[in-house]
């Protein structure tokens, strides 16, 4: 069973056991505009919460993606190399960024539910 969580940096996390899939929200892709390049981390790289883990280039600007959790990058979405527009088309599906293996137990209190996240956008 998996659970989806959200951050105030407009990222989502799907947690399945010790494996966490990460991407950006529909709101984030909308704000960035047409995405033309995603710079992914190396597999094996350490993910340190709050540090830059990837960069998204839209036509408009480059934006850092901050690691939402501690762990190790175990997979990146290689489809984004040639089709970065997947992030626009399917931000919370095929446009996922990477999978991180966590060593510590997942602490849900650091994140928002979908409902809370969507409410936060109205502020």
């Amino acid at each position, binding site marked *: 069973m998996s659970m989806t969580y959200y951050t105030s940096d407009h990222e989502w996390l799907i947690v399945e056991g010790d494996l966490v899939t990460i991407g950006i929200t529909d709101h984030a892709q909308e704000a960035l505009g047409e995405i033309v390049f995603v710079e992914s981390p190396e597999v094996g790289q350490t993910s340190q919460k709050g540090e830059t883990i990837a960069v998204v280039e839209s*036509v408009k600007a*480059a934006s850092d993606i901050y690691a939402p959790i501690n762990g190790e990058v175990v997979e990146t979405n290689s489809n984004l*190399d040639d089709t970065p527009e997947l992030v626009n088309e399917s931000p919370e599906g095929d446009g996922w960024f990477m999978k991180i293996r966590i060593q510590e137990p997942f602490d849900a209190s650091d994140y928002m539910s979908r409902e809370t996240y969507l409410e936060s956008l109205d502020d």
Partner: protein
Amino acid sequence: MSDISSLLKTPLYNQHVALNARIVDFGGWALPVNYSSQVDEHHAVRKSAGMFDVSHMTVSDITGSDTLPFLSKLLANDIQKITSIEGKALYSCMLNEGGGVIDDLIVYYLGDSYCRLVTNAGTNEKDMAWLQKQAALFTDVTVTEKPELALIAVQGPTALQDLQKIFPGQISELVSQLKRFQGGFADDTFIGRTGYTGEDGVEIIIPADQASDMWNRLHEAGIQACGLGARDTLRLEAGMALYGSDLDENHTPLDSGLSWSVAMKDDRNFIGKQALSVPSKYRMIGLVLEGKGVLRGHQPILHNDIIIGEITSGTYSPTLSQSIALARINNDPEIEAGTLLKVQIRKNQIDARVVNYPFIKK
């Protein structure tokens, strides 16, 4: 983002909100960065026509019998180039004593005692201070800022014919007569066949209280509203300099690839001329990224592992589907069109090829 309510608003602000624009703080102005897809807005201008609210830019009228001597001293380009044709426009830099660029501008010649300047928004305060200071040295010249005027640019291959259809009568007649880089009045509306996209088109200077009506009529006729995002990708594809990125007070026009706009070869003495008699240490090049990524301002350029300069502005080109940039490098004659350089993008060095710009040919 700062609170929208504290920002300056153009007379078309409500139009932007009604069109669901993404509004940003652009040097203190609340302006649309895009309405829908920035890339679609870009293509509209390349393929048909698009319109931009550029009312944040400064219009000032120069009047008095010393207008021409004043501009002759103020501008690095020579106002005499356009004084034989009423309405003719000229691009020029305005320099400080050290040859640094205070601003770049368009001047329209409307008579020996009347010229109109269009200068940048972000430089407004220092421009006005400089203009007033220099004007005070002449007996009869007055610089009058015109904040009551709005500016709408309509650009694209169909812009002129579209305007003639949408505004029959005086405007249509004027537009049909304008040659490139020439402007004129239709009643109290000034239209110049100029722009910042590399396309044919016009820039319309109109009293603020008439701007919404004009904008709405353009919109209803199907002209695509375009934001600052598309404006930037369009001007960069056209190889046009942006003040604050490609141009600044620490560099002369010669350092910024604008020697064509400096009229050195006569005995006219303009402010900053002395400093330009020394050859520039720099030159501007165009770059096209060969690897993956996007070129952006301030990324270092390397040649044989040595840093030789940096990007002044870069973006992703929707027309070419690759990243392009303008860069200022040391004046090394070995580097020419075709030379492969490296650009430091974060922790990677990516190949970029030197090209002549404009990046798109029209």
